[in-house]
C-alpha cells in the first residue's frame, strides 16, 4: 500500500485533471456537509417552536386558574 | 362492464360538448406551439423537416397535459366524484370511462389536426400518415397516465404546474416512441416496431393506469 503520489502538488494537480476531480469532490463534500447542517437547523427550529407552543399553552392554563 | 364504461364516457362527452371553448383552446394551444418553432429556429425546410416529429409530438403532449386538470376538477367541485367513488361499480372502470372521454375530446382532435400542422413542416405524405397513426395510438396512453397525476393533485393549490411536474417524466417513453415512429419513417427505416411498443404503452395507460388513478382518487377524497 504505497502512496501513489510523489509530492503534494502532484496530488493537487491530479495529472492535469485537477479541476474536474476537485470540482467533483468539492461539490460532493459541500452537499454532504450542507445537508446535515440544514437538517440539524430544521430540527432545532422545530424543537424551539414546539417548546414555545407548549409554554404558551401552560401559560394560558395558569392564567385561567387564577381567574 | 363495457356498458358502464360507456355510460361514464357518454356522460363526460355530453358535459364536454357544453364547454366547447375548453376543447378549442387546447387545439389552438397546439397550433400556436407548433407555429412558434419555425419562428424560433428559422425557415430552412431541411431543418424543419428534421425537427417536425419532435416538435409536433411535444406540442401534442403539452396540449394534452394542459387539459388534464379538467378531467376530474368539475366532478370534484360539484360532488359527483364522491358519488362515483361510493358507487357499487368498480372505480377503476369509471376512470377508464373518463379516460376514454378525455381522449375523445383531446387526443383524437389533436391527432386529426397534426397532419395539417405537419404540412407547415414540409413532411411527406407517408410521414404525415405515420404522425397521425402514432398520435392516435399514443395519446390514449397520455390520457391514461395523466389521469394519475390529475387525481393525485385534485384540489391542491398550484395543481396545474404540479401535474406537469409529476406527469411529464412519465410521458417520456410515449414521446420517444411516438416521435421515433415518425422519425423512422422520414429516414426510411419503417415504423412498425415503434408503433407496436406505442400500442403496448397505450394498453398499459388505458387499462392499468386507471387502477392507480382510482387509488389516488380515494386518497384525495378522504
Amino acid at each position, binding site marked *: 500500500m504505497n502512496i501513489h503520489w510523489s509530492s503534494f502538488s502532484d496530488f493537487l494537480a491530479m495529472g492535469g485533471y485537477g479541476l474536474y476531480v476537485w470540482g467533483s469532490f468539492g461539490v460532493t463534500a459541500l452537499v454532504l456537509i450542507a445537508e446535515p447542517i440544514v437538517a440539524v437547523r430544521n430540527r432545532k427550529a422545530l424543537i424551539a417552536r414546539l417548546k414555545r407552543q407548549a409554554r404558551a399553552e401552560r401559560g394560558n392554563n395558569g392564567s385561567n386558574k387564577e381567574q | 362492464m363495457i356498458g358502464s364504461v360507456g355510460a361514464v364516457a357518454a356522460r363526460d362527452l355530453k358535459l364536454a360538448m357544453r364547454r366547447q371553448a375548453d376543447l378549442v383552446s387546447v387545439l389552438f394551444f397546439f397550433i400556436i406551439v407548433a407555429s412558434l418553432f419555425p419562428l424560433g429556429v428559422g425557415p430552412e425546410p431541411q431543418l424543419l423537416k428534421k425537427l417536425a416529429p419532435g416538435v409536433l409530438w411535444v406540442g401534442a403532449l403539452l396540449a394534452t397535459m394542459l387539459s388534464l386538470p379538467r378531467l376530474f376538477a368539475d366532478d370534484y367541485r360539484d360532488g359527483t366524484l364522491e358519488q362515483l367513488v361510493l358507487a357499487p361499480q368498480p372505480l377503476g372502470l369509471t376512470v377508464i370511462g373518463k379516460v376514454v372521454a378525455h381522449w375523445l375530446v383531446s387526443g383524437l382532435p389533436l391527432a386529426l389536426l397534426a397532419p395539417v400542422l405537419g404540412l407547415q413542416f414540409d413532411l411527406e405524405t407517408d410521414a404525415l400518415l405515420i404522425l397521425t397513426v402514432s398520435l392516435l395510438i399514443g395519446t390514449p396512453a397520455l390520457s391514461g397516465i395523466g389521469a394519475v397525476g390529475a387525481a393525485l393533485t385534485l384540489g391542491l393549490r398550484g395543481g396545474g404546474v404540479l401535474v406537469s411536474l409529476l406527469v411529464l417524466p412519465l410521458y417520456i417513453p410515449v414521446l420517444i416512441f411516438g416521435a421515433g415512429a415518425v422519425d423512422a419513417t422520414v429516414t426510411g427505416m419503417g415504423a412498425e416496431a415503434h408503433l407496436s411498443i406505442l400500442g403496448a404503452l397505450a394498453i398499459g395507460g388505458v387499462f392499468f393506469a386507471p387502477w392507480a388513478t382510482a387509488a*389516488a382518487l380515494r386518497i384525495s377524497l378522504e
Partner: protein
Amino acid sequence: MNNRLINWFKYASPQSFYPLAGKMIPWFAAAGAVFGIAGLWIGMAVAPTDFQQGEGYRIIFIHVPASWMSMFIYLVMAFWAALGLAYNTRLSGMMAQALAPTGALMAFLSLWTGALWGKPMWGTWWVWDARLTSELILLFLYIGFIALQAAIDDPRRADKAGAVLALVGVVNIPIIYFSVKWWNTLHQGASVSLNRAPAMASLMLWGMLLMALAFWMYSIAIALYRARTIMLERERGTEWVKETLAAEGAK
C-alpha cells in the same frame, strides 16, 4: 419464552422508533465516516493511475456510489410506500418523506460528477447517453415526489399520494430506462461508448466499494435524523412528544 421474541412491529410506531433511531444514528454516521476515510485513502492516495483515463478516473469514487444510492434510495422509498399503503403504518410515510431529499441530492451529485467526468473524457459536459438521461429523469421523479408532498397540507394524504406516485414511478423506471436506451442507440453515432467498462484494478474496486458503503451509511444516518424531526412535528400534541421535548430541555 414467547415474550422473549422481539416484536418487530413494536418499532413500527413512531413512539418507540424515535429513541431507537436516535441510538442508531451515531453508529451509522461513525460507520459512514470510517468507510469514507478508508475509501478516500485507497481511492485518492494509494490506487494507481488508470492507463486509459489518467488520474481523471478518480471521479468514479464518488460518481458511482452517488448513482447507486440515487437508484437504491428510490427503491427503498417505493418499498416504504408499498408498506404504508398495505399496512397503513404511520412510520412508512415518514421514512419515504425523509429519504426523498437525500435521494434527490444523490441524483444531483451523480449528474454533476458525471458532467465533470465527461468534459475531459469526451470533451463535452453533457451527452445524451442513456444512463445520464435516465439519471436526469430520476431526478425529475424525485422532484415531483417532493413537490407533491409539499403541496398537500394533510400529512396522511401527503403520505398516501406520495406512495402512489412512488409506486407508479418505480413501475415506470424500467420502461423509461429501456426507451431511453432504445432512443439513444438510434440517434447516437459511434463517438461515445460508455458501456465498455475498463478492467478495474482490485484496489480501485475496493476504493469504490468502500465509498459506496460510506454513502450508504451516510444516507441511512441522515434519513433517520430527518425522520426523527418529521416524527416530532407530526406527533406534536401527543404525550410522548411532550415528554421528549421536556427531556431535550433538561440536557
